[in-house]
């Protein structure tokens, strides 16, 4: 315990201590390498994120052939065209929103998510209320995001698993004819690619 007049370091939280214990033991046993862990963390903190997916969507909006290729085999097409590949990027299925169908994605069991195109999932995606309620009441949950789906439009809820993950291709906003892919990609948000929102409007 701290002595008089000397400031000692307060131990971190219980989970932080458990992770330190786990990590130091696994390193000693030669099962993990600290440098490799750092590279992995840097990748998910700084390199992989929803901007990847936004580029895929923008391309799909302007290039019919590319759109068909991602509908056929999304993982292979994004790997070929953009070089996005790797963990949790296998077996991505692209689902396209249309005037008749709105797609939205959940992982009812845990938080399966297409990391290669969206990065790591937001906190709410991992929350029990979202996971449990989206299937029961998709219209109600979407309304809480401010997304009102007309009654005549079907909502399809896709349950991600460790084997299949989904990427929603939102509808291209009106008034964006002739826009460059880069400008279009700015309208594509993470939430739009999960399907809880629409792409931003052209005037935004």
């Amino acid at each position, binding site marked *: 315990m701290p002595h008089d007049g*000397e400031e*000692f*370091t307060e131990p971190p939280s219980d989970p932080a201590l458990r992770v330190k214990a786990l990590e130091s*033991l*696994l390193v000693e046993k030669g099962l993990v390498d600290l440098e490799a862990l750092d590279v992995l963390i840097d990748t998910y903190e700084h390199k992989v994120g929803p901007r990847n997916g936004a580029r895929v969507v923008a391309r799909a909006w302007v290039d019919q052939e590319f759109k068909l290729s991602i509908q056929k085999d999304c993982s292979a097409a994004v790997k070929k065209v953009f070089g996005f590949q790797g963990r949790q990027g296998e077996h991505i299925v692209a689902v396209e929103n249309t005037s008749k169908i709105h797609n939205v994605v959940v992982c009812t069991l845990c938080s399966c998510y297409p990391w290669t195109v969206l990065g790591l999932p937001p*906190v709410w995606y*991992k929350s029990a*209320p979202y996971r449990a309620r989206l299937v029961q009441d998709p219209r109600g949950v979407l309304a*809480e995001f401010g997304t009102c789906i007309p009654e005549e439009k079907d909502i399809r809820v896709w349950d991600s698993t460790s084997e299949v993950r989904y990427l929603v291709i939102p509808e291209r906003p009106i008034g964006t004819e002739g826009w460059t892919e880069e400008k279009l990609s700015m309208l594509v948000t993470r939430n739009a690619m999960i399907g809880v929102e629409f792409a931003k409007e052209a005037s935004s």
Partner: protein
Amino acid sequence: MNKKAYDLEEPVFDEPWQAQVFALAVKLSEDGLFTWKQWTAAISYEIQNAQISSDPDLGDTYYEHWLNALERLVYAKGVLNIDEMTERKEAWRKAYLQTPHGIAVQLKKT
């Protein structure tokens, strides 16, 4: 749930340990200690456990589930045992308490 909660742009990890435990599980799976299917089964189990013990499970405890799942898996695979872990955790706790502020905390060699 309200719209505001959904709107928050949060950092990828709230605390460094979350990043560490995330990376440990991904790496160990890649290196073949367990398949990703086993991993999702393990974390789903922990999530259900937490909910049974009345965790509202709003996503903010997600990496605690992740840590519980990883501990359970490494014990099940026989890579580590619970006594080693308890002992090592205590060693780190003491190392903090014995290290003056501002100096990097290190484990004492025993």
